């Protein structure tokens, strides 16, 4: 009860009602939506979830990672590999997946923070680890090498092994996205969350008022990596295939960062709003470019849209939108 009160805190009732209504809608959505719209919604929830995970490290603790594909890729590969080779289902496999990814996060974080790499240098370190792992997986037979790892496509619902159609995956990613949202709210409203914000703003000043900077940063990257690994597990079982070239690609890492940056870094709604905007734009441009029949045109529209957003709304869409709606997510 105490926890609930802390989570709800001083959020205005109308936000709580809106969120409740939105959740109810999302819960019945598969009954209302066709196949296409459900797949779009799945995509939105995926990016909202993984963006929320990345936002913990960058938006809260201020450490720019451009290598989060590492954790998603490791998570996906471990869970898929265990299932593929030993028939161990993902619900058990995810513990191994999360453990491996969290360890990888701890290693990257410890090296980066211990050697005080900041800003771009830390970002390059995360890229380097991700790329290094990509090449390693290219040559690792257990993981299928560069030829990829394929899971048998099976649409009969088998919740134990996370096999089934889109509706199953929809509810799983919905649960993850809602869970991550609540977790982030709880973290932000905790001592640790405030310590992260202080580190993001000025690490030296934070340490002077007693913040154990290294430990807080380590916790941030480990939680962020662990949550991202879950997204990787989900991804692997949803798409049924994994290639090092895509799973660990820089493009995958960049994809993870976009929703929170576009939506509004360090805010709870930023990753969600960003995911809606980006996925919406992406789908709209797909239709448009299908009509135009020029390869690359979709991405050109996409690039233009990013350009417009970063030039005119550099702090993200959500802070601006919240202002327009007369809401203000209290930036603590």
């Amino acid at each position: 009860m105490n926890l609930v009160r802390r989570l709800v805190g001083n959020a205005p009732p109308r936000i709580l009602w809106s969120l409740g209504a939105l959740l109810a809608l999302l819960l019945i959505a598969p009954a209302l939506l066709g196949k296409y719209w459900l797949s779009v919604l799945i995509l939105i929830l995926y990016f909202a979830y993984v963006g929320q995970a990345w936002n913990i490290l960058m938006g809260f603790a201020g450490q720019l990672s451009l290598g989060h594909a590492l954790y998603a890729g490791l998570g996906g590969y471990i869970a898929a590999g265990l299932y593929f080779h030993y028939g161990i289902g993902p619900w058990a496999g995810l513990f191994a997946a999360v453990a491996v990814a969290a360890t990888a996060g701890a290693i990257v974080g410890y090296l980066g923070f211990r050697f005080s790499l900041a800003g771009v240098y830390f970002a390059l370190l995360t890229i380097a680890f991700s790329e290094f792992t990509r090449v390693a997986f290219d040559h690792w037979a257990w993981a299928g090498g560069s030829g990829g790892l394929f899971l048998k496509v099976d649409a009969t619902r088998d919740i134990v092994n996370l096999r089934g159609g889109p509706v199953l995956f929809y509810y799983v990613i919905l649960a993850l996205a809602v869970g991550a949202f609540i977790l982030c709210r709880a973290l932000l409203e905790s001592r640790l969350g405030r310590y992260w914000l202080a580190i993001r703003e000025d690490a030296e000043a934070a340490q002077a008022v007693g913040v154990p900077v290294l430990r807080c940063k380590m916790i941030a990257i480990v939680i962020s990596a662990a949550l991202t690994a879950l997204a990787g597990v989900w991804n692997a079982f949803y798409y049924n295939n994994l290639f090092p070239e895509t799973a660990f690609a820089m493009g995958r890492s960049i994809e993870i960062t976009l929703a929170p940056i576009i939506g509004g870094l360090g805010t709870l709604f930023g990753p969600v709003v960003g995911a809606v905007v980006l996925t919406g734009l992406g789908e709209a441009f797909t239709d448009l470019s299908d009509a135009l029949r020029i390869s690359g045109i979709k991405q050109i529209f996409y690039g233009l849209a990013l350009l417009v957003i970063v030039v005119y709304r550099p702090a993200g869409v959500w802070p601006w939108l919240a202002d327009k709606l007369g809401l203000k997510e209290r930036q603590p």
Partner: protein
Amino acid sequence: MSGARLDLEGIGKSFRGLRAVHDVSFTVPAGAVHALIGPNGAGKTTIFNMIAGVFAPDAGAVRLDGETISGLRPDRICDAGVGRTFQLVKPFRGLSVLENVTVGALHRHRHLGQARDSAAAILSRLGLHDRRHQLAESLTLPDRKRLEVARALATEPKLLLLDEVMAGLRPTEVDVMVQFLRELNQRTGLTILLIEHVMRAVMALAAEIVVVSYGEKIAQGTPHEVTRHQAVLDVYLGEQEMA
């Protein structure tokens, strides 16, 4: 030297072979206000950084209530009871004034609510209560200086290190700050060591003054003694502040 709140014993520090501080010793008794003065580049802030744990001294030791704290990380030294301000103020720019101080208060209060209450109380004592919801980056310089003091106080230190908190304040503002610090010292018995160029404030607050020049202690005594000390006069020759 037991009984002293702060005890510096022959501390020294070199950077790339350049001697910044050499063999500086002094003590500050519990409940006292002392000042550390000297020309720019004399090593005052380096001494502060060694006390606060930004770096460890190459030689000597720093003790707080008899316990050696030199070599500890800054956050551990804060745990031990040392609060500090930065000469170049370092507010958490994107956070509100209240949240800035709350971060400090969280050091002694685990729960956010309690920490926030404690922070609010400190802000009203420093006259920043009306601005508590403003972002720290929107504050004027004098207010930022006060915010530095408030944030350090929120950690409930036994020893407060103030690095030029009067610089840039108007004379009336200096008086307000002096009054606040004096009251704080008298009411709570908080030990204060301040680096200060504004001599009016030093004279009004400090029971004793330590003077450093070129990284070495050249004099120590009451304000009265120090202003008549020949070495000090030599150092300050031409600096009108030393009236």
